[in-house]
């Protein structure tokens, strides 16, 4: 199949289809590695995961073993986890703290800045042996935005802020909720899904499946006395879907039963009422009524292209997708919380996370099943196209309208055709990517369309 034909994008008839070989072909998987994962900025970790000098933490990014380390100088660095000597993993524990990292194979030692500082029997090497050339290697580029660290293996990649395009404002909307910054709590969710990674990107942005796939979650939350009696497609506020440029996309919804930040709900218990209401006053004072309402009263599912999701609804989860093969991915998810929260407030937030998210939650396992079911269904063949046309002609696309997924796929297609991140017709007029969004837009009066 010609790469140019993998997507049908007919804006006249409102038809958008993706050829399923994009999720099953080994050739295309290798091409993705080369043209997307080796070219874009890829999320590597949050600053709070290496809080103190000497802290380190391992990661695997697009198949590459790396680790984050905070130097004695306070700077966060990312290293390729391979000894410059013979290749062994230098960092072998998942996380820890050390002032010197010593490769266990021949004992070469590195400081927290990656410099090679000791070589056993160094006198046996000739004059051409230069320790200065043999420090730990870093990816071509490392940068951070509001505590989120990214790397790129592409030395020519645009700077991170430019790359993030309209996604920046949404990261701000998350980080600004905290009074003293955000941190990742200890413990992470790690699981494997036997499905193509792009299915989880779609699923993470998809509001259309909520009432079908997650019926048990909706029933549970209704059973606790929340007013979800209007839990029908037609009765819900449509929300707002946007493509943010460079493949980044978002869906924003009106929060229906409180948010741990500044939107109290009886579900959270009386104990937390006062501090949550106080947080609201603080946000209004600092950011004004409209932006405070945006943080507190609306939720967002944000994709930072290609494989990072920041899901900010019942709690904030950072979800990283690591493609393993055309039909397999590893998922890691962390819980991001405001640093100032503790006690009952933190407990409420931790509890809120567990109801929906995570492999033991009331929703995530059903998503895992749905994705694996799709991947298995692809083998039936004879039905080669997946449809993402929903709401394509809707002048005010809501979160069930799949614009977010189309924005992602259009960028993916451009990259796979060897095109860069500019001039991708992702369906949104340029001015809308930077336009101020108001809560009433999310409520259901969205402007513009996809033409």
């Amino acid at each position, binding site marked *: 199949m010609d790469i140019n034909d993998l997507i049908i994008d007919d804006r006249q008839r409102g038809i958008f289809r993706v050829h399923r070989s994009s999720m099953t072909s080994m050739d295309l998987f290798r091409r993705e590695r080369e043209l997307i994962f080796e070219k874009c900025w890829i999320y590597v970790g949050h600053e709070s995961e290496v809080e103190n000098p000497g802290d380190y933490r391992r990661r695997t990014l697009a198949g590459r073993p790396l680790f984050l380390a905070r130097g004695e100088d306070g700077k966060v660095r990312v290293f390729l986890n391979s000894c410059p000597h013979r290749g062994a993993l230098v960092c072998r524990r998942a996380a820890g703290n050390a002032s010197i990292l010593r490769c266990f194979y021949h004992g070469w030692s590195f400081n927290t800045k990656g410099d090679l500082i000791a070589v056993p029997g160094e006198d046996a090497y000739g004059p051409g042996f230069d320790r200065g050339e043999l420090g730990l290697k870093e990816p071509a580029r490392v940068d951070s935005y509001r505590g989120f660290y990214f790397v790129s293996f592409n030395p020519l990649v645009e700077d991170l802020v430019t790359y993030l395009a309209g996604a920046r404002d949404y990261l701000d909307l998350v980080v600004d909720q905290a009074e003293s910054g955000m941190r990742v*709590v200890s*413990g992470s969710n*790690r*699981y494997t899904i036997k499905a193509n990674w792009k299915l989880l990107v779609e699923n993470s942005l998809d509001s259309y499946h909520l009432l079908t796939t997650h019926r048990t979650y909706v029933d549970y939350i209704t059973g606790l006395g929340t007013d979800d009696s209007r839990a029908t497609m037609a009765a819900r506020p449509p929300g707002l879907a946007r493509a943010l440029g460079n493949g980044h996309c978002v869906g924003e919804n009106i929060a229906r039963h409180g948010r741990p930040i500044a939107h109290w709900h009886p579900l959270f218990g009386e104990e937390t009422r006062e501090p949550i209401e106080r947080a609201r006053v603080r946000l209004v004072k600092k950011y004004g009524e409209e932006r405070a309402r945006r943080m507190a009263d609306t939720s967002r599912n944000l994709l930072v292209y290609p494989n990072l999701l920041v899901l900010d609804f019942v709690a904030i989860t950072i979800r990283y997708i690591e493609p393993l093969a055309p039909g397999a991915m590893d998922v890691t998810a962390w819980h991001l919380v405001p640093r100032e929260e503790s006690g009952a407030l933190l407990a409420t937030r931790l509890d809120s996370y567990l109801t929906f998210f995570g492999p033991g939650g*009331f929703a995530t396992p059903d998503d895992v099943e749905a994705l694996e079911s799709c991947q298995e269904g692809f083998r039936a063949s004879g039905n080669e196209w997946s449809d993402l046309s929903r709401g394509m002609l809707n002048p005010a696309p809501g979160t069930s309208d799949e614009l977010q997924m189309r924005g992602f796929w259009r960028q993916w297609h451009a990259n796979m055709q060897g095109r860069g991140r500019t001039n991708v017709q992702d369906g949104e007029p340029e001015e809308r990517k930077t336009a101020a969004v108001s809560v009433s837009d999310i409520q259901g009066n969205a402007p513009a369309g996809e033409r």
Partner: protein
Amino acid sequence: MTADGGPALRESVEEFLYREAALLDDWSLDAWVDLFTEDARYVVPTTDLPEGDPSRDLVFIDDDITRLRARALRLTGGNAHREHPRSRTRRFVSNVRIAETGDGELSVSANVLVFRFRSGEAAPYVGVVDYILRRERDDFKIAYRRAVLDLESLAWHGAVSIIF
């Protein structure tokens, strides 16, 4: 470590754990929830933080009795898609250690191996389950159940979709 009560106590605790395992393998989750006290807690820490504390850390599961009942209802209602159709499981409970806590409760630990079979996948959940058992009439009730997985990641399980 076996507390006063000797073989008879051990026998009754082991019999209780076997009964629990049988209820779970039979998917008799309503009856299983009835084994818990009203103030019970069921905790499953994440695979990377076995010492995880739900009041501070991210865990997989931290259920009070209300959510435990909801979990049982969800898993048996036909809409928990990861377990519909249901997986087949078989539990092996061994290495039972028993200690009196002093206030009439027992602190019990057991090694647990659960084989789960579904959709061509055959994989074990392996770990230790720590209990606080409260004596009630001639039987026990579970006041606390903390199931700690030895797995490094949930890997191909994709979820904790059964009760571990």
